[in-house]
């Protein structure tokens, strides 16, 4: 089997070509660091098999970041292998540097020039014939998006000797300048690099208000204007076309009462309801895709870098944090593109505070039930609270256990472009598919388990919910949640199952309350006589707790893998403590209970002072800043 590596500078279209060649659906984006680990797939052409590898982007064989190390290791450990090197026609000179380095190795090489049409539109051209003569190598102009797989495409040139004896960087660049002069033509009247729009928007007084307006309108569109209408519609359709006919069918064949109840309470009330949130999830992903595809994320990262460097991070974390609004687990992986280890850990630890799409149904259900049409402001407030807590925490981590070195924020700006509508819809379709498969996988099975646990007692016989396993366990720990106003065992049950996946919170609420799917969004879920009911104080306390407490199981697993046991444990403990303290504070403030408010402030104060004490100690040099009990630095 032939191994083929797709190599190139970041953001040149490697993953796009990989998808075309292997008919895969890997994530692509207009931002460096979208691919952080290699991906591979085997394809068959006639009798021959090829294993195609998509490697993370790199500028040079002298590595500077984690993802570059991954690529260089693969290239150096597999010398004499086949490399497809992608050059972005718009960045010819810079892309040539890595090519010259690769040509010093004994490899089989094929050069592909991507984005040539854009370069031509800008008045440029490349003399491919001449370039072939100089480099003595197979060169082809490609369209990474629609590249056909043929045996001819996998024709490589064996590189045996250096094309010239180039010892240092300056010599290499002189050689590149020479090639550029002889083979590439530019439109002299055209300014390459920065677009006119960039010149206008990249001013603090324009960009920041624009950014706030964009976020505000996008969120109100998703959560208030368009999203709920579509969700309600889908909910009615699912109820009408799926739930009613199935229940009717089960009854007509005289199915057992237990089976009908499982279908009615566990499967339809919970799973289909979560499905009805698909439009909102989809809209959120469309918004994130637009930011990513257009190149706006780099602009946001640049403009916010000043701010993030004040809390010990840098603009690069913007990508991870924004992706966190989609899914915390996949966003945590992207924290790897931070150049400094401590910054990576900090970014991974604050990502769960970004409200992911799994929390969206909870916010919508509870906020609608308690606040009616004013739910948008509550949801917006929760999103903001998560961001504020994350930023404060990043600062505290930076001052105590995760000090970052002075950061060298060095990122390339991709061209600003109108996102391709087809790409946007494709990406949101892909994420919607993932959402649905999750709902019909883990949520489906867990809903049935929750239903059984809430209907079976410790003697393993069917009983009322009040005597069920889940209820009795929750009752045992209900004292712990009393200061938050959440002492109902039903509510504690929902929080417990939420540890597995946040979608299960709404799912279990529906199981306990036996609410039909179509009625949910109008706020009839929380009725005075139903099992779970909220008032303003308990509703807010519950929402804040859900926002801040532990992430889902898959995110915990990723945290342990990416940042290690020690920091993952600290992060999760901090999340529980913060969730508890802030919920308690919110509950008592809303209730106007001064005594309890003072007590919660006192508890919160003790915690904050303990942290401040650690910060001051670290500043005075009594601690090294990387551990909590170090005496070595004295």
């Amino acid at each position: 089997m032939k191994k083929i590596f797709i190599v190139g500078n970041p953001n040149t279209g490697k993953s796009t070509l990989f998808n075309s060649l292997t008919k895969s659906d890997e994530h692509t984006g207009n931002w460096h660091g979208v691919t952080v680990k290699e991906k591979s797939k085997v394809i068959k052409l006639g009798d021959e098999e090829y294993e195609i590898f998509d490697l993370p982007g790199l500028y040079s064989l002298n590595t500077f970041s984690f993802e570059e190390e991954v690529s260089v290791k693969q290239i150096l450990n597999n010398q004499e292998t086949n490399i497809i090197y992608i050059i972005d026609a718009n960045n010819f000179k810079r892309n040539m540097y890595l090519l010259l380095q690769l040509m010093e190795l004994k490899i089989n090489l094929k050069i592909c020039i991507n984005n040539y049409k854009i370069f031509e539109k800008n008045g440029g051209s490349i003399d491919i014939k001449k370039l072939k003569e100089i480099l003595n190598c197979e060169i082809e102009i490609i369209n990474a998006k629609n590249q056909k797989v043929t045996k001819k495409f996998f024709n490589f040139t064996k590189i045996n000797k250096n094309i010239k004896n180039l010892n240092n960087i300056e010599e290499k660049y002189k050689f590149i300048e020479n090639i550029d002069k002889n083979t590439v033509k530019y439109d002299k009247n055209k300014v390459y690099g920065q677009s006119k729009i960039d010149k206008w928007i990249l001013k603090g007084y324009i960009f920041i208000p624009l950014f706030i307006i964009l976020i505000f309108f996008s969120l109100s569109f998703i959560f208030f204007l368009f999203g709920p209408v579509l969700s309600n519609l889908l909910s009615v359709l699912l109820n009408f076309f799926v739930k009613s006919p199935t229940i009717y069918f089960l009854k007509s064949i005289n199915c057992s009462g237990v089976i009908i109840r499982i279908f009615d309470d566990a499967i339809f009330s919970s799973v289909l309801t979560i499905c009805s949130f698909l439009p909102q999830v989809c809209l959120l992903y469309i918004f994130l895709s637009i930011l990513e595809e257009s190149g706006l994320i780099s602009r946001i990262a640049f403009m916010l870098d000043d701010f993030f460097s004040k809390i010990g991070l840098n603009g690069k974390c913007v990508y991870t944090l924004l992706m966190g609004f989609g899914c915390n687990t996949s966003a945590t992986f992207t924290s790897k593109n931070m150049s400094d280890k401590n910054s990576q850990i900090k970014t991974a630890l604050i990502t769960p505070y970004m409200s992911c799409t799994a929390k969206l149904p909870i916010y919508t259900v509870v906020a609608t039930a308690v606040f009616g049409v004013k739910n948008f402001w509550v949801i917006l407030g929760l999103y903001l609270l998560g961001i504020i807590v994350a930023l404060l925490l990043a600062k505290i981590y930076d001052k105590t256990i995760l000090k970052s070195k002075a950061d060298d924020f060095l990122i390339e700006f991709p061209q600003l472009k109108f996102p391709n509508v087809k790409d946007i819809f494709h990406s949101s379709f892909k994420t919607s598919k993932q959402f649905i498969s999750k709902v019909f996988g883990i949520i489906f099975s867990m809903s049935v388990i929750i239903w059984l646990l809430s209907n079976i007692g410790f003697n393993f016989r069917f009983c009322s919910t009040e005597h069920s396993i889940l209820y009795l366990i929750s009752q045992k720990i209900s004292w712990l949640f009393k200061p938050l106003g959440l002492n109902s065992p039903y509510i504690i049950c929902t929080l417990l199952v939420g540890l597995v996946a946040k979608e299960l919170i709404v799912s279990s609420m529906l199981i306990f309350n036996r609410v039909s799917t179509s009625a949910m969004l109008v706020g009839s879920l929380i009725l005075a006589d139903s099992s779970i009911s909220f008032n303003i104080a308990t509703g807010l306390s519950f929402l804040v707790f859900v926002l801040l407490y532990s992430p889902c199981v898959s995110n915990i697993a990723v945290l342990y893998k990416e940042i290690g046991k020690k920091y993952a444990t600290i992060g999760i403990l901090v999340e529980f403590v913060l969730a508890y303290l802030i919920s308690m504070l919110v509950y008592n403030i809303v209730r106007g209970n001064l005594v309890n408010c003072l007590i919660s402030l006192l508890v919160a104060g003790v915690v904050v002072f303990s942290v401040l004490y650690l910060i001051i100690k670290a500043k005075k040099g009594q601690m090294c800043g990387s551990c909590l009990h170090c005496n070595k630095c004295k």
Partner: protein
Amino acid sequence: MRLLDLKINQEAVIKKVLLKDDKLNLRLQELGLYCGSKICILNFSPLKQTLLVKIFNSVFALKSEVAKQIEVEQL
């Protein structure tokens, strides 16, 4: 003069890179910030801690602290 002293859209040639961090120094050179290459500042972030520079046809974001340590000659 230093890179940071350049005004927006003023072109200059890099004379010396005085960074102490060898790894960063090497990376900058590999990206095109070597002695003799042309550079131009395109923009500053709101607090001027970060700047956008044009090297060849690419645009990079760079820390002001780094720009302070790059000696240039205005064209």
